[in-house]
């Protein structure tokens, strides 16, 4: 990780000095061990604050929507899941590929501070360092070795794209992780096996914690509308009442609006302050698309049309057996 940090700083400094780019998006260390913030850098001397560690979870590609109109050329560091988001933004015509320089970073998975806190509760962790087989958690007096699986984000455990799928320059070595693409659907299958009432009660329990903070929408690389329907008071879609029906309404519509464009980065579930497993809604749609219309992975490239903007004459459907004419 230190090697990549060095490379990041060197690359950023060089590119800014040579005026290849006007601005670079990366991460810097926050005050706490668990915080790595996005940072936008325009001066070469600031490049030394850039870092790469196990907490650079934030996806920087969505910032391009706001930053690109202001600058001619922007450099950005992207992980595997960020690169699929980048492709999706390209496909949605939200950004221009020519104005962006991509520095890809293969990623071995990010560490969930909440899981670390659970392991060393009240022990005041001061450092989390990558070791040979996993991670070493250190506090004032002791240190403890844990496996990567114990403290990585759930979404990283089923990650299918650890390596960037699009980049101009790759920093670091390609990572192998042997995750079966189908593994991510296990949670969905669990819910599918319930009865309708059980399913409804499950989701009711989850949705009633919803604060309607819209964080899931704001972080989503597929939710890139200039004006979201939920912000448009004329559309009469956004009900502000805190009722069971409105919460369910919001979440179904949110999941459906990204159908076929969701890159399965799992950011919505990670960011949710109430811990609602939103990825299980999105994955249900991905699973259905795969089953009914053939395997489709949004974000793997920027040209294949999404399943819901296209059709075939001989398409099957799920509501009648014959599938229509």
């Amino acid at each position, binding site marked *: 990780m230190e090697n990549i940090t060095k490379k990041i700083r060197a690359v950023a400094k060089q590119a800014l000095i040579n005026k290849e780019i006007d601005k670079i998006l990366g991460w810097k260390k926050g005050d706490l061990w668990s915080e790595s913030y996005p940072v936008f850098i325009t001066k070469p001397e600031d490049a030394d604050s850039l870092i790469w560690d196990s907490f650079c979870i934030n996806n920087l590609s969505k910032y391009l929507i706001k930053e690109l109109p202001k600058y001619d050329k922007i450099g950005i560091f992207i992980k595997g899941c960020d690169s699929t988001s980048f492709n999706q933004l390209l496909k949605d015509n939200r950004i221009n590929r020519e104005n962006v320089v991509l520095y890809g970073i293969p990623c071995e998975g990010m560490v969930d501070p909440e899981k670390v806190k659970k392991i060393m509760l009240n022990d005041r962790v001061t450092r989390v360092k990558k070791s040979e087989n996993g991670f070493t958690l250190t506090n004032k007096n002791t240190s403890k070795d844990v496996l990567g699986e114990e403290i990585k984000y759930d979404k990283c455990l089923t990650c299918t794209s650890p390596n960037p799928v699009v980049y101009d320059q790759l920093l670091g070595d390609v990572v192998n992780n042997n995750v079966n693409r189908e593994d991510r659907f296990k949670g969905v299958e669990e*819910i*599918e096996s319930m009865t*309708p*009432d*059980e*399913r*409804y*009660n*499950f*989701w*009711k329990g989850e949705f009633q914690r919803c604060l309607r903070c819209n964080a899931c929408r704001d972080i989503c690389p597929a939710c890139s509308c200039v004006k979201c329907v939920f912000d448009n008071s004329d559309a009469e*879609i956004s009900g502000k*009442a805190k*009722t*069971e*029906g*409105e919460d*369910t*309404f919001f979440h*179904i*519509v949110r*999941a*459906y609006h990204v*159908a076929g464009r969701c890159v399965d980065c799992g950011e919505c579930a990670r960011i949710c302050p109430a811990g609602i497993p939103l990825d299980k*809604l999105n994955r*249900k*749609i991905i699973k*259905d*698309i795969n089953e*009914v*219309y053939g395997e489709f992975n949004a974000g793997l490239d920027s040209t294949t049309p999404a*399943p*819901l903007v296209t*059709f*075939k*004459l001989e*398409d*099957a*459907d*799920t*509501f*009648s057996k014959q599938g*229509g*004419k």
Partner: protein
Amino acid sequence: MSLDTNTNIIDKNEEFKPLIVAFCCNWCSYAGADLAGTSRLNYPANIKIIRVPCSCRVNINFVLRAFQNGADGVVIAGCHPGDCHYSTGNYHTRRRFSLITNLAEYVGVEKERFKVDWISAAEGNKFATVMNDILEDVYKLGPNKKLRDARWKI
């Protein structure tokens, strides 16, 4: 008035009358409903038809709002694939509502409550059968309480 008659009145009022909202495409299914009417076919009066220009005009919001505001079942009816007035509209309906049907089932709405079907302008009979079938299914399931807006009273 005796006590008996009173209870009878209450019983009658509380008898479950399903409310079905049917989104019908202007060019086929709405005409199909017309044909069912002019052919003097029987279909239940609990069906409230909402005319839409094309079945692909139906948004997921419409369906959810219908359930929230008192519907016990929702039907979406459009031209048969290939017969769309706008050439391709119902192909999109087919893909969208395949996913939405599954998604609604996934969050716990019984699949009998939500139906998508193709009804052409010549299929007055089919219109009556589809509507009778969904009414029967919904009647068996009883009133819909899921997704219901708590402020809504019927």
